């Protein structure tokens, strides 16, 4: 009986400690509004290790560290822009999953629009050319004109 109790004690001790250990890695903030902000913000930063995952989604240890930093900055009273600034200063624009709009990225942002405009212009030009051809048939060549003249002359004789 005593050994059973001892086992129970050990097992329950392990069970209570285990979740606590799990939380050491990613401890959510007590204030749900701040925690929500931290999560939303974490979704907008690229994990530098896995590159196409956000730090919110990634399990890389750097992503865990960066999530902790995002929470710390928010608790310290940083605005979202300030947190962003903090990470960009260390890792550059690449850390942002949504690239910022600036002269270097104009081609990235407006390139698809440019290609769309060119495509529409191309389609217009093509159909206008076709209609113009249909409206004005090609002029007769010298050879054809001669044959036509000959035919007309034949007719006027009879």
């Amino acid at each position, binding site marked *: 009986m005593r050994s059973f109790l001892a086992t129970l004690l050990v097992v329950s001790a392990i069970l209570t400690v285990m979740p606590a250990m799990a939380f050491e890695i990613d401890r959510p903030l007590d204030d749900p509004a701040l925690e929500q902000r931290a999560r939303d913000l974490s979704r907008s930063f690229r994990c*530098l*290790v896995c*590159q196409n995952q956000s730090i919110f989604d990634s399990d890389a*240890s*750097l992503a865990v*560290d*960066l999530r902790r*930093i995002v929470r710390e900055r928010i608790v310290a009273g940083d605005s979202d822009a300030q947190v962003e600034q903090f990470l*960009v*200063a*260390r*890792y*550059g*624009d*690449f850390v942002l999953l949504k690239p910022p709009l600036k002269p270097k990225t104009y081609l990235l942002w407006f390139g698809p629009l440019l290609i769309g405009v060119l495509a529409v212009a191309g389609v217009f030009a093509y159909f206008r*050319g076709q209609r113009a051809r249909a409206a004005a048939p090609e002029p007769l060549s010298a050879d054809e004109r001669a044959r036509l003249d000959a035919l007309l002359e034949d007719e006027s004789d009879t």
Partner: protein
Amino acid sequence: MRRLIYVVPAAVFALLAGFFLAGLFLKPAEIPTALTDKPVPEFALPALHEGAQGLASADLSGAVSVVNVFASWCLPCRVEHPLLMELAKAGTVNLYGINYKDKSADARKWLDELGDPFQRIGADLDGRVGIDLGVYGVPETFFIGRDGRIKYKHIGPITVEDMERRIRPLIEKLNQ
């Protein structure tokens, strides 16, 4: 107009082929540091070896210095280590180490085994200084000018080729 039917697809193909060819030689895993030509962010790390001096940002100006971020759990660090030993022997730069997210005892054992090329080693136990420096993996190696500004960051293990092509000329230039 009729000739365009032949020219346009050929031009589009050539353009795409050009992009793909260039893409073959890109290294998307290497993100150039945002700190190029900026002063080293301020930090002060405790020493890895007991009784030795720690490493602080203040140590990184006045002479050309190289800071290697390493860990005993990092296999590529082992690969580049002999080159760091050589660099230390050449004595052209101040060579420092940052032990990144490591158990200090493991790191000391690792250095006992492979040799310790570093003049000073700071222990960055929680990786905080690493983040301030924009480290996102080990090994990374910073090259810092006399003015205390970061000139270049090498990402991943240094190979013999990197050493000859990039690093030795860079060190020579910084030492001028």
